[in-house]
């Protein structure tokens, strides 16, 4: 598969005018030269997105991620470097950009459709689907200025996904509408992924990145600092944010940030049934051991474990309290082992997150993420995610 988007050495310079010299008078006074500061919003960014991949862009406000997206979408032209795109693109930088309040929803669908490159015939073909997706059947002949912002955003998203783009560019637009609609948008995006379309999206939601991205790129002050699998990238993003001392967005405000380190997790290991193998077979036992260190005695510690699949879906989340295991008082070093009798998973690599917190979960002590994995290799040709031990019974009825 070739590249759908190739970003090579892209830099973008903005001129910041102290006073915007819109008037001829000022230009004449200054002989056409206008004092301005230069500001590089992007520095030598290289990024390749292969066909069918979903790549997330993470970055703090002003890191240049929206500028990069605009360059990819063709709205801005990079000062240096080049961007190549292959295939039909729909860019969602703002839902309902180009909606005109005086026109009805129906008229806006046709107008917006053609802005995104659809012909009238193509819009007619998907018109009913758009209206149904946006859930605006009753209001479609009302002027858009009477719509709520959620309704307008729904309509905008509905049009964009019905353009059937090969490349979809999304800028933090999924945070609209109620939860049900967000669910629907996400389903649509997953359907896009199954259909082999390419997606480049900007988001603050670390969860979303873990859930849908194949890779994520982190921008910091216009420089690309990491392109990595989602989990690693989210960590790099968090580090970058911490370094600059900025406020963390809620999604990133996970327990490890405020961890009190009363019980730290010093290490962890996975043990499989056969010690010389670094993997388990489906249905085999395995165990995960975490080592802790408690500088002072603690009475109420609970150790937690989360097991994910590679797409970031949580497969199992539990802790010693829920399991009913008594930890008691901890002090100094020790270890806790989670034993799994039959690992009900098929082939794959499954990230494991570990944590320690207080009995009621109110205080986080420590957090260990993106470091441990369970690996499962199957020697059978049975495939899937979940392993059900299965027996076959045959009942032949001889004539």
């Amino acid at each position, binding site marked *: 598969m070739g590249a759908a988007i190739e970003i090579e050495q892209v830099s973008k310079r903005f001129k910041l005018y102290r006073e915007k010299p*819109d008037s001829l008078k000022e230009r004449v006074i200054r002989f056409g030269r206008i004092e301005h500061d230069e500001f590089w919003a992007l520095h030598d960014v290289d990024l390749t997105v292969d*066909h069918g991949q979903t790549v997330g862009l993470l970055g703090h406000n002003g890191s240049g991620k929206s500028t990069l997206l605009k360059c990819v*979408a063709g*709205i801005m032209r990079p000062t240096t470097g080049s961007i*190549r795109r292959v295939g039909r693109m729909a860019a969602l930088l703002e839902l309902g*950009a180009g909606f*005109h309040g005086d026109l009805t929803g129906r008229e806006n669908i046709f107008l917006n459709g*053609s*802005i995104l490159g659809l012909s009238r015939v193509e819009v007619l073909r998907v018109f009913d689907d758009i209206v149904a997706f946006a859930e605006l059947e009753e209001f479609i002949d009302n002027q858009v200025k009477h719509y709520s912002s959620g309704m307008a955003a729904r309509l905008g998203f509905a049009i964009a996904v019905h353009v059937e783009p090969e490349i979809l560019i999304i800028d933090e637009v999924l945070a609209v509408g109620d939860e049900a609609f967000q669910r629907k948008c996400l389903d649509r995006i997953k359907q896009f992924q*199954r259909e082999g379309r390419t997606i480049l999206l900007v988001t603050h939601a670390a969860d979303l990145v873990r859930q849908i991205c194949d890779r994520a790129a982190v921008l910091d002050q216009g420089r690309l600092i990491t392109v990595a699998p989602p989990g690693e990238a989210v960590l790099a993003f968090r580090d970058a944010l911490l370094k600059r001392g900025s406020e963390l967005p809620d999604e990133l405000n996970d327990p490890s940030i405020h961890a009190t380190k009363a019980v730290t997790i010093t290490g962890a290991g996975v043990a499989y049934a056969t010690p010389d193998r670094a993997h388990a077979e489906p249905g085999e036992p395995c165990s995960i051991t975490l080592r802790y260190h408690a500088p002072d005695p603690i009475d109420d510690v609970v150790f937690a474990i989360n097991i994910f699949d590679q797409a970031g879906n949580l497969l199992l989340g539990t802790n010693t309290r829920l399991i009913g295991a008594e930890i008691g008082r901890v002090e100094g070093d020790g270890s806790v082992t989670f034993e799994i009798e039959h690992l009900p998973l098929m082939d794959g690599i499954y990230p494991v997150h570990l944590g320690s917190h207080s009995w009621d979960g109110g205080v986080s002590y420590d957090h260990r993420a993106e470091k441990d994995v369970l690996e499962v290799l199957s020697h059978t040709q049975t495939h899937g995610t979940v392993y059900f031990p299965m027996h076959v019974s045959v009942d032949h009825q001889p004539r």
Partner: protein
Amino acid sequence: MPHVTNSLRASNARDALNAREQGSRRPGPFRRAGDVWRYRELLINLTRKELKVKYKNSALGFVWSLLNPALYLVVFYLVFQVILQSGIPYFPIYLLSGLLPWNLFSTGLGGGTTSITSNSGLVGKVWFPREILPLASIGAAMVHFFLQMLVLGGALIVFRYAPSWEYVILVIPALVTLLLFLTALAIALSAINVYLRDTEHLLELTMLAWFWITPIVYTYDQVADRIGSLYLLNPMVSIVIAFQRGIYGRTSYDTAAGPVKIIPDASVWWYLRNLAVVSVASAALLLFALWIFGRLEDNLAEEI
């Protein structure tokens, strides 16, 4: 891509046909023109939008587009016929045959110049060939023009006024030339206005002056008698007199002091030659406009 839908395949094939590799380099004028052509449906929709929005909540709607020339007609009739006694027979028809193409030019250029700045929301958020915006303003002006021409045609029938059939064909090349000239100017000015907002104000003054140096309320010969064919250096002169020759048709009228010339009594070829000169110059200007548009487009989204 195992599960690609049919429609995606179809568009794949179409794009492969275009051999579309979207680079970030500046596309040349011909490539830009090609992009506009591929987005022609958007052009139609934006034109429609402009017309719809303009008259959305007005009771009279399109009648307004006819009231403007009607008012001009009344004012100029009173001033030039009644007060100044200019004596041009069928003055309303003479006036309208020059005023309507002029209105197309001035509303198209006025709307075109501000088209990008007034659609900043769109320009900053979506990609499409930006030239579509000034072109849509011209499209809207053309719809008004054709409506007004229909009314003028109706007036000709009511007054049983026959244009000179030999010359009426001039209207078509004159309109084409006008559109070419208008397009070139509108595309260039629309981009310049983003950087230099004085453009739109300067244009208003320029258009006022330009109106009076074009033979619309007076006649070509009143100026040409003094400066000769230098007058044709104003491209609008060639265009307007071709419209007048085609629709109004009378080249002179008799007075007690002898005949007075109105429009040059020249052959169709003389008119066509003038139009051809303007067309060629406009085509060159259009290429230049597309080129400068491409350069100014570099920072369009952030300057707006």
